């Protein structure tokens, strides 16, 4: 399997075709917009947080397979997590997509995103939904822009 196929493996293609939690939440407690200026793609992340627990999470928008799958996987991974756990997962994912390194136990299914570090231009795609989520948690009203 070459690097490209490793990146675009079945999980990614599946989440790209059938994104999970791909809709708007009616009355989210937190939300943010994200924008990748390199390609022009935009996402919205919605969250409902009750007693520090993420009880609802969803997204809308459009982007490449990587960003869409990353968004979809993120919503799955964060549902039911505490805000602190979400922040921690952000750090792990950020580290993984830039270095390729991750602890299987901590990162779980998100490991499919690790191949992206071989494609520096695409790191922004993978991390965009995560930045947006973080902005939403920070109650930031700014549009997240992947650095």
């Amino acid at each position, binding site marked *: 399997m*070459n690097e*490209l196929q490793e990146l*675009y493996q079945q999980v990614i*293609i599946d989440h*790209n075709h059938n994104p999970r939690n791909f809709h708007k939440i009616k009355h989210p407690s937190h939300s943010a917009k994200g924008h990748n200026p*390199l*390609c*022009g*793609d*935009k996402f919205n992340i919605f969250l409902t947080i009750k007693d520090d627990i993420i009880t609802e999470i969803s997204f809308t928008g*459009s*982007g*490449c*397979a*990587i960003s*869409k799958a990353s968004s979809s996987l993120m919503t799955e991974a964060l549902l039911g997590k505490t805000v602190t756990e979400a922040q921690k997962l952000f750090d792990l994912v950020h580290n993984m997509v830039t270095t390729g390194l991750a602890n299987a136990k901590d990162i779980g299914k998100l490991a499919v995103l690790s191949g992206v570090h071989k*494609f520096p231009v*695409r790191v922004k*795609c993978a991390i965009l939904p995560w930045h947006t989520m973080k902005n939403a948690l920070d109650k930031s009203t700014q549009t997240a822009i992947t650095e």
Partner: protein
Amino acid sequence: MSKLDINKIRSDFPIFADKSLIYLDSAATTHKPKQVINAISNFYSNYYANVHRGIYELGMKATEAYQSARQNIANFINASDWRSIVFTGGTTESINLVAYSWARKNLKTGDEILITEMEHHSNIVPWQLAAEETGVLLKYIPINTDGTLDLSNIDKLITSKTKLVSIIHQSNVFGTINPIKKIINHAKKVNAITFIDAAQSIPHSHVDVQDLDCDFLAFSGHKMLGPTSIGVLYGKTELLDSMMPFMSGGDMINSVTMTESTWNDIPYKFEAGTPKIAQAIGFGAAIDYINDIGIDKIHDYEQSLLKVALEKLKSIDELEIYGHQTGENGAVISFNLEGVHPHDLAQFLDQDGIAVRAGHHCAQPIMNKLEVSATIRASFYLYNTEEEIDKLCASLRKTQSFFN
């Protein structure tokens, strides 16, 4: 296929020693033949010196080469006077020069600048900023979704308020060649100044500034086999003469006292600081290379490539081509493959050694019109071949089936 000695040409470009590279991004920037690379190395190695001010022999050689590059470029676009050729860092700087030294100085509230929805950002943003500062209204000639200008209301758009009309000659997204002579004539009726962004046309076709009779015209060296960091602003001499400098400093002055300065003659008035000597010489060598083959032959060859490419791409299911439905077009094709995001597609094409561009191509207003965030763009130059088009199509089909 029209006749070019393509093997000879490809062997002139060191980059194509890598046989696996299929470079279809010449609208962004082109590769360089060894004649250009060597002209630059030779200058730095054998007769490098500053120009204009040196008494010494070395400086004279450099000055001659620099000046002959300028004359060369003037001839290429049929400018009657070398003083019309101002060296800049590129098309972008050429446009900014006029936005600062002409628009900001001559326009006022109530005046209008007219551009099109088809412009490259470099022919939008400088006018937006100048318009904002001067209180001028920036208007747009709309485009049709087929990639042509909608000129139906041109008489209402060009009025006595219109002071500047700035138009892209050939679209860097669609390849559309706009009817600029017609628009220039409209502009002349109301005495508006005309500016042509020729960054995409001059590398691929014969452009004659006397025939067009435009006031300004801009293009870049790196898009026509030349070095980065060099471009040209062509301007009518009377107009350039009447303008204030843009950047100021050494070489562009006549005299400097502590309270005031007077300006050197054109074009030097607009070339502050140590000139772009190596870049001008490299650009001159690029023009020589093009002249040796013949710009008309290059144009014909590209047109035949374009015809083949359109045919073959159209045979791919669910591939949408933007533009290319009518009229004259350059060898630039933007498209999307249903169900595959352009950036994913570009990544897969790269895997097969195919360099195309995915993105908004610095033309977000067009993307908004097309209601897409990005397209794939394949663009051709004298070194491309029909075989490469076949490989592109094969890779597109392969990727399509991977994603579906």
